[in-house]
């Protein structure tokens, strides 16, 4: 296996809140290989965005604390200086955000915003940058690129804006693209366009993508490997096909089961009882224990470690202590 482009090692990001310091991302480790698309799924608030912002060094400096290692091409970003981070951001690692509506500055033209990275990182002049921006816009399928350059974000539809965001992220040919829920705010038909586009870019430029989403469908479609997060922790990790076919963690099982399938109609959906815990509210044991139907005494007192399976799948659950344990997914399927 070639060396990963990025390797995150026991990353822990905590925020200073009224209730003291609360770890929102709790000692997570994963890596992304060159040219690979890694999916990160999990419910709202489980720490997906904070993870990506930690990598970018964009978590608010005064209220947060980032610990652990983020090795990007061997360099630890967690300890890198702000000046060094600035060189990396937008240049080697780029990011697309969830909200295409608000992620563009409404008061500057598309052109100005697109060319900014080039002018910062490559010190290109206006003309060069503009030419490249137009080229990029065409690449992401924006037809009338020239005229769009002088328009303002509000004149564009959501799908167009998201494409501008992608163009903006890709313009300096980064080696890693972090896409934080890039299609959540979009309509299905537009989402299909954007996903198609990202797939194409990934294949053509070999840019590694960290794809954050809560839509399992998107993961299934886009990613090779995936990470499932719950309450700031990674609960399962592995190849997409492996996890979809044989999810091991009860949360992953529940997640896959509770999505209504468009192809067939179930009488009743599976649902995970209870609600996502507030970060910091759980101190001991497995964070999923209060909602878990397989909960054991041990789960309430001891946090389970991540177990590695032969196929590279990793699961954080006491059910699989020492690599054994029940295959709960089949049971769930058969009884539904």
């Amino acid at each position, binding site marked *: 296996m070639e060396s990963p482009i990025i390797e995150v090692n026991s990353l822990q990001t905590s925020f200073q809140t009224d209730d003291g310091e609360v770890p929102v991302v709790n000692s997570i480790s994963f890596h992304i290989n060159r040219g690979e698309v890694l999916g990160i799924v999990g419910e709202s608030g489980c720490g997906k965005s904070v993870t990506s912002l930690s990598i970018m060094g964009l978590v608010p400096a005064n209220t947060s604390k980032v610990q652990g290692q983020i090795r990007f091409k061997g360099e630890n970003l967690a300890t890198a200086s702000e000046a060094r981070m600035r060189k990396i951001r937008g240049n080697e690692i780029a990011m697309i955000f969830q909200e295409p509506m608000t992620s563009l500055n409404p008061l500057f033209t598309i052109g100005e915003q697109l060319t900014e990275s080039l002018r910062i990182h490559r010190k290109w002049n206006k003309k060069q940058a503009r030419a490249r921006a137009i080229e990029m816009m065409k690449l992401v399928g924006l037809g009338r690129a020239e005229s769009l350059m002088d328009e303002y974000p509000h004149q564009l539809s959501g799908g167009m804006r998201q494409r501008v965001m992608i163009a903006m992220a890709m313009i300096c040919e980064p080696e890693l693209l972090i896409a934080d829920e890039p299609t959540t705010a979009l309509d299905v038909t537009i989402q299909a366009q954007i996903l198609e586009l990202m797939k194409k870019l990934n294949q053509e430029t070999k840019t590694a993508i960290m794809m954050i989403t809560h839509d399992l469908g998107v993961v299934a479609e886009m990613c090779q490997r995936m990470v499932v997060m719950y309450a700031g922790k990674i609960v399962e990790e592995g190849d997409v096909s492996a996890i979809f076919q044989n999810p091991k963690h*009860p949360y992953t099982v529940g997640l896959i089961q509770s999505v209504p399938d468009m192809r067939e109609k179930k009488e*009743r959906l599976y*649902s995970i*009882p*209870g609600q996502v815990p507030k970060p910091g509210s759980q101190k001991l044991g497995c964070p999923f224990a209060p909602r878990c*139907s397989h909960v054991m005494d041990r789960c309430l007192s001891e946090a389970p470690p991540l177990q590695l399976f032969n196929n590279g799948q990793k699961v954080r659950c006491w059910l699989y202590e020492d690599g054994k344990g029940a295959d*709960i997914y089949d*049971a*769930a399927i058969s*009884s539904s």
Partner: protein
Amino acid sequence: MAELINNKTPLTRPPVEDSAISPWKEGWRSFKKNKVAVIGLFIVVFFILMALFADLLAPYSYETQKLADKHLAPSAEHWFGTDEYGRDILSRIIFGARLSLWVGFISVAGSVIVGLVLGLLAGYYGKWVDMIISRIFDILLAFPSILLAIAIVAALGPSLRNALIAIAIINVPTFGRLVRSRVLSVKEEEYISAAKAIGMKDGRIIFQHVLPNCLAPIIVQGTLAIASAIIECAALGFLGLGAQPPTPEWGQMLAESRAYILQAPWTVLFPGLAIMLTVLGFNLMGDGLRDALDPRMKN
């Protein structure tokens, strides 16, 4: 493993905090965390208590003159010195708190009530009602406020009551506009649709739903307006359009002592400080309230 898909498990567990906390109480909780705001509250409470217990606190009478003791410098007997009539400045400041606070509260109450009614009408009914009321606000707002107050006081005669009326009038558009803009946004809130969907009548919607949700910014603005009303009243007093002597009023005290700034600077210093502190207290408190009551300030 049938229990895994057993949907009859209780859907919810009791949330962590078990008591019912109203938005106001929660506001108070987060207000308490804001140290600066609590200092503001302290200052305000301090002055309110001072006003309430002026009779007990003041070492001397505020009106008894002793012309022989004119302009004594601050000393153990007269902490803040004496004024040109030989009256104890500390006592006058203590009694002066009554008037200044009273002015603040009453004039703001007046403008809040009028502003609230006009703002609600304009915001909720829109169209020509809004047109007319908004134009009136525009007109009032475009007037230079001090001059407007002076003219009002000149028209009604200089007295505290009229100064109050003047200050209240010049503050009406501030509140009116605030309420109106709040109403406009609250009106679009989903819970108003929800109320309509239930079949609720306009009156009930306005009083049950729109009004309470306009209150928080008004309370904030209100405290800040009390602060500015005190200053405005002092300014009117400074121009000689204020309280009935010998009742002490800080602005008037300042104005009267102004001529003595060189010989007896304390006569100017202390009333000015008193105004500043009170106003500062209200401002600090208002700021704290803004943060506490504004949901946007919370994550």
